């Protein structure tokens, strides 16, 4: 918990989905800071690791993609690097987790959001409840990634024969490779959803490149969060829809 | 071996007792698996441990080490009382019918004539009754109570199955099962083979162990036949050649004797070697002794051996004691009576009993010369290796010279296998570094000695300066030259006495066999039994034709077997009295009406008529001997004697300790644990493992991988009693020394009940020492007692008493 958070406590408890560094700067358009530099670096290290893991993992997963080992200097290098990248991913993602877990706790509106998933897919956000920093889809990605990474690192270690051969039985290793493969497919699907959502929802990518989104983006997709941010600005009470 | 390795495939029953063929002779063991697979042969293993041979046996019976004679006499007793006797064989071909003279008796473990103070017998009464015709008296009806058969019956009567169980610890039903299977082989169409090795020889009554089985085989009619025989599995490659060539202090090549002090001249020497036949018409082949001896002397001393100087008889040393066996030599060494010890291809510090005593002896030498292809513990006895060899080098003044030699794979020559085959071999590689052949080293030493004797004279230089040394390169005689010399050659033309124009033997030619040897100095031959190995036809040992007429397993065109290329000794006994094979399907030779023919070289003059000449032509009787006259020091019949260290007193003769005539040096008595000594409660035995060969292969990486570290084997019961863990360290100690090793805790060893007392066995494999590639270990012979067989002084490695406790392992200082 950051000092900023403590400070804001004096007035009002900060909502879960307002993260350190989140802020609104009035203007034209309004600029909303969504991710700090550290968070962005953390994200991109994770993203790069995940991509490399996907590529190297897919190379070992199916012969039709074995050619991808060429990207890593051949089969031996791929085999040797993949688990280490996994370790990087694990710790990098752990950083993201610590940053984002609170904002990804379930909220009441998540149920409605999910119930109206067809509206989500059609982009009819006016029919959706006001959403905090993350909508249920983003939370699904977050928790999905978290869970799958745990599964992948655990099963990965069980099959990392170079160092951990002696610690598991062959039957356990077989379970591990199967679980690893299934989890990897899942995480890649989650990743596809994540990336696609970023592409589909225009104005999103800037959050992770420049750290900022426009006020309109926040209004459209994360209005509750925007209201909270406005409300937490010094000297302002957050206006609520009930007012 | 009376037979050959290849002949074992012809058997119906293999009895492995006193050995562990699968473990120590895996290559030869193929013929056992062959007999099992193709003939349906059965395999019995009798051993203190369920060993590798037992793993493929049809029946395994446990036995306490050192109790084999009780078991074997029990089998003979069983065969006699159940009429499992091949009578048509026993009556004509053994001395069962011979009558023993009055005065011979056996009682309470001793035969007549025992002198306790000398630990020896006066053996005069141990002879046949000689009739007025000068021949031994026989009773073909076997009615005479003093005929050998009746004496034998009486002698073995005590060894009933209950007694066998009491002495040997073999459960009665297991013993009876073995007896039943063995007894079946008394028919002429079933044979049994005995495969034994150091498990029988390395006892204070080793020779009698072997006799016990030989007697049983004779009763079953299994000597001289295909698939039968007494088959000694020799321990070293070429150890058979060692004994053949007389590399023992009391022998000269071909099992001739070194004279003793009682035989100062040639006439006296020959007077006890007349070997007059004891029955009419018998060959008594040793009557040719003089021919072999004179030819040997001509080979040794050439023109210096003449009729006038009794073929240089005076050159030969005359023994003042029975033999200078290694035990005696080390005893003398310890007493400071040996200055220089030449140790050629030999590692006595590891290979002989009571390491402490051996090391003390070596430390008293002025000089020790080691000739070996490998680094040995003996060569390094003065080096401090912590617990493994705790010495202070500063206290040892012995000068040690190591002369690296070639190994068998780097030089040319012949090796004699257990089946008496002399197989020529060629070098497979070049010797490393400065290694030289043993021949080169010995020749160089000889030439220098000869020079010194020539220059300086000396008390008696003649045997050295006159030694025949007519090699092309005196500095390095070739293996071919030595082999040709061993075979023998004609020195002077010999003409037919009936027709002086007819040349019988031509000077300069190789002899075709020992039949051509003469006692007039016209022939030379280094080792009569090897004669025929390198004839005018060339090197017979190098033959590699594996044709096998009749699928008989004889392979007469493969290498050369002594004597006379004969593959089964006493093979005349494979036929009945009329010369017809006992088992036509296993014909070996047969009488075709005019001569003996067949698959093997007949062990009888080819035209000797069947009912005339007995099959055992080396014996003056013409028969084999169930009762061995006075030819063995410890009795004409085997008697069960306990090992010198044993858990119980001798059940059948409580007053007799050990073998009553085995030699014990006075100082050594106090190094033996008392009978039933509670401080040393467990019966120890030492043995070999298949992964290693003696103390050689621990120098080899691969062998060291396969069996890296010293261990001892104990039963699960003993481990539980002493709190010893599988793979944990233990300390094992006898009254003479201690060792540390890992514990192999196994179901394959079981505690035994001996005379009502529980006896645990501790198995001690021997292969580790303080040099080599394998993990450092202790010589197993730290534990073993310094006493040997009464006849041939083979040490009692197989039975001794120890104690054991869990340990944290050796303290490596």
């Amino acid at each position, binding site marked *: 918990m950051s000092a900023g958070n403590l400070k804001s406590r004096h007035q009002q408890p900060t909502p879960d989905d307002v993260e350190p560094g989140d802020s609104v700067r009035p203007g034209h358009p309004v600029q909303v800071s969504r991710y700090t530099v550290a968070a962005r670096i953390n994200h991109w290290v994770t993203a790069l690791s995940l991509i490399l893991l996907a590529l190297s993992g897919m190379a070992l997963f199916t012969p039709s993609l074995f050619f991808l080992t060429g990207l890593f200097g051949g089969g031996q290098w791929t085999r040797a690097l993949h688990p280490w990248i996994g370790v990087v991913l694990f710790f990098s993602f752990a950083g993201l987790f610590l940053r984002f877990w609170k904002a990804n706790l379930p909220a009441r509106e998540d149920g409605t959001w999910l119930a109206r998933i067809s509206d989500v897919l059609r982009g009819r956000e006016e029919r959706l409840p006001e959403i905090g920093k993350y909508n249920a889809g983003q939370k699904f990605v977050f928790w999905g990634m978290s869970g799958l990474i745990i599964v992948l690192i655990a099963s990965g270690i069980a099959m990392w024969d170079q160092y951990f051969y002696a610690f598991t039985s*062959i039957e356990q290793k077989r379970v591990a490779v199967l679980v690893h493969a299934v989890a990897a497919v899942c995480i890649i699907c989650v990743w596809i959803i994540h990336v696609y959502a970023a592409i*589909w929802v225009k104005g999103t990518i800037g959050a992770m490149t420049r750290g900022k989104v426009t006020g309109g983006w926040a209004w459209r997709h994360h209005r509750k969060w925007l209201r909270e941010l406005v409300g937490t600005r010094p000297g302002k009470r957050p206006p609520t829809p009930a007012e | 071996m009376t037979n050959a390795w290849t002949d074992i495939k012809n058997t119906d029953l293999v009895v492995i007792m006193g050995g562990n063929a699968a473990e120590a002779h895996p290559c030869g063991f193929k013929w056992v698996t062959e007999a099992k697979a193709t003939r349906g042969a059965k395999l019995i293993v009798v051993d203190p441990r369920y060993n590798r041979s037992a793993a493929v046996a049809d029946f395994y019976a446990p036995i306490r080490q050192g109790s084999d004679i009780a078991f074997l006499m029990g089998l003979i007793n069983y065969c006699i009382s159940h009429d499992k006797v091949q009578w048509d064989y026993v009556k004509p071909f053994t001395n069962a019918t011979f009558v023993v003279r009055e005065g011979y008796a056996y009682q309470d473990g001793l035969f007549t004539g025992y002198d306790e103070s000398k630990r020896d017998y006066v053996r005069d009464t141990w002879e046949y009754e000689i009739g007025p015709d000068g021949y031994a008296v026989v009773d073909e009806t076997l009615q005479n109570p003093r005929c050998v058969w009746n004496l034998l019956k009486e002698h073995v009567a005590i060894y009933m199955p209950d007694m066998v169980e009491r002495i040997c610890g073999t459960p009665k039903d297991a013993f009876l099962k073995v007896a039943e299977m063995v007894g079946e082989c008394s028919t002429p169409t079933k044979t049994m083979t005995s495969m034994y090795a150091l498990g029988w020889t390395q006892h204070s009554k080793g020779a009698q162990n072997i006799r016990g089985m030989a007697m049983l085989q004779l009763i079953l009619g299994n000597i001289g036949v295909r698939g039968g025989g007494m088959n000694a599995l020799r321990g070293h490659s070429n150890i058979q050649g060692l004994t053949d060539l007389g590399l023992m202090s009391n022998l000269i090549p071909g099992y001739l004797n070194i004279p003793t002090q009682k035989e100062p001249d040639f006439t006296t020497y020959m007077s006890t070697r007349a070997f007059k036949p004891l029955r009419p018409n018998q060959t008594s082949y040793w009557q040719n002794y003089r021919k072999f001896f004179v030819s040997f002397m001509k080979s040794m001393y050439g023109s210096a051996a003449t009729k006038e100087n009794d073929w240089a008889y005076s050159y030969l040393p005359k023994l003042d004691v029975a033999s200078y066996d290694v035990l005696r030599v080390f005893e003398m060494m310890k007493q400071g009576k040996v200055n220089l010890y030449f140790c050629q291809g030999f590692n006595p510090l590891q290979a002989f009993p009571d390491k402490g005593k051996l090391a003390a002896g070596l430390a008293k030498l002025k000089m020790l010369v080691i000739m070996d292809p490998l680094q040995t513990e003996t060569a390094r006895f003065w080096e401090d290796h912590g617990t493994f060899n705790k010495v202070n080098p500063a206290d040892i003044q012995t000068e040690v010279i190591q002369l690296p030699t070639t190994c068998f794979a780097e030089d040319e020559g012949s090796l004699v296998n257990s089946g008496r085959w002399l197989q020529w071999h060629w070098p497979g590689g070049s010797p490393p570094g400065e290694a030289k052949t043993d021949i080169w080293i010995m020749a160089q030493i000889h030439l220098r000695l000869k020079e010194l004797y020539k220059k300086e004279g000396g008390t008696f230089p003649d045997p050295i300066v006159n030694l025949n040394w007519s090699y092309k390169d005196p500095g390095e005689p070739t293996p071919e030259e030595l082999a040709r010399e061993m075979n023998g050659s004609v020195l002077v033309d010999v003409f037919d006495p009936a027709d002086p124009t007819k040349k019988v033997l031509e000077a300069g030619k190789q002899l075709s066999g020992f039949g051509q040897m003469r006692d007039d100095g016209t022939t030379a031959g280094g080792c009569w039994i090897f004669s025929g190995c390198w004839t005018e036809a060339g090197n017979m040992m190098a033959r590699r034709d594996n044709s096998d007429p009749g699928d008989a397993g004889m392979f007469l065109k493969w290498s050369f077997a002594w004597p006379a290329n004969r593959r089964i000794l006493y093979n005349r006994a494979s036929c009945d009295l009329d010369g017809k094979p006992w088992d036509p399907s296993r014909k070996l030779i047969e009488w075709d009406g005019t001569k003996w023919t067949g698959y093997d070289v007949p062990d009888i003059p080819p035209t000797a008529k069947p009912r005339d000449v007995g099959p055992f032509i080396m014996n003056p009787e013409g028969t084999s001997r169930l009762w061995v006259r006075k030819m063995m020091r410890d009795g004409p019949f085997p008697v069960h004697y306990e090992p010198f260290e044993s858990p119980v007193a001798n059940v059948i003769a409580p007053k007799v300790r050990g073998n009553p005539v085995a030699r014990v040096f006075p100082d050594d008595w106090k190094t033996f644990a008392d009978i039933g000594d509670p401080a040393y409660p467990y019966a120890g035995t030492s043995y070999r493992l298949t992964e290693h060969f003696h103390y050689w292969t621990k120098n080899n990486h691969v062998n060291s991988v396969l069996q890296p570290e010293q261990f001892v084997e104990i039963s699960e019961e003993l481990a539980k009693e002493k709190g010893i863990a599988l793979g944990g360290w233990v300390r094992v100690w006898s009254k003479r020394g201690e060792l540390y090793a890992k514990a192999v805790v196994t179901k394959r060893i079981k505690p035994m009940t001996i005379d009502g007392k529980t006896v645990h066995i501790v198995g001690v494999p021997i292969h580790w020492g303080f040099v080599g590639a394998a993990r450092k270990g202790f010589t197993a012979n730290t534990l073993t007692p310094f006493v040997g067989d009464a006849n041939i002084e083979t040490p009692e490695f197989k039975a001794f008493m120890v104690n054991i406790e869990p340990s944290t392992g050796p303290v490596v200082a």
Partner: protein
Amino acid sequence: MFPPIPNPSVASDAATPRFGEKDILRRSASEVTPPAQRLTEVAKLIDVSKCIGCKACQAACLEWNNLTEEIGFNHGVYTNPMDLTPDTFTLMRFTEWVNPETENLEWLIRKDGCMHCEDPGCLKACPAPGAIVQYSNGIVDFQHDNCIGCGYCIKGCPFNIPRISKVDHTAYKCTLCSDRVAVGQGPACQKACPTQAIVFGTKDEMKDWAELRITDLKSRGFANAGLYDPPGVGGTHVMYVLHHADTPSIYAGLPDNPRISPLVDAWKGVTKYVGLAVMGFAAAAGFLHYVVAGPNKVSEEDEENAERLADGTPPPAPPAGLQEGRTP
């Protein structure tokens, strides 16, 4: 006696054929057209009932393959080393077993090593093209140039055979001496075996030979003697004659019914295809969605609303009926 295999010619011009591409029946992570003409199937027959555990095979294997195993320790048993390693392709395993029927001790000695399955699990699991090949005579061989050291073969193997070297990170196991077999010889272990407990020939010959052995064993009271040629892996090119073929597992854990683990089948089968399909579907769905639904853009109105909110001017309330989730 099984007829010994004659020594090869030592003439300098003697041909030295090796197995080539034309003889490959299966190749890991690759599609190959099976050869039109299959080589005669070979097999090694290990007759446990003839084995004396002398380890000559183990020594011959080390020597022929030029392997340097470590000098280990004694662990209270005769088995040494304690397990197969990248340098120990074959290992004598010793089991002391008390036959419950006879109460007799039996010392079961089994030569462990690659079974050269007709349906090799290692090859199935291997992700590296050509790291494992199966020749049309049945020999399953590792090609170390192609091996990436992932250890999937270990998971694929129903017999726990391959081991990864810590030195060059590739997988090792018995080659059935494919280099010797290619020149008409038997494997080194077979050559060294003193008791013909190991024999080598065509698979048919070996089965016939095994029949003779089984008949002999049955005559000695081993009613359950039999051949171990497990159908679960399509049969093997290393077979055992067992005295107790009804319970292979008493021989130091020889699998009773070996087959490629269903987990491995699932992993290398359905998971691979379904996984690829699911990932492809996800990507395609995204693409289609974009095409159909178009981009989700922020409108001018949104921006204005945001500005108003930031300025403290209340923006319009959301449409009624959408607030039930958040109304206190």
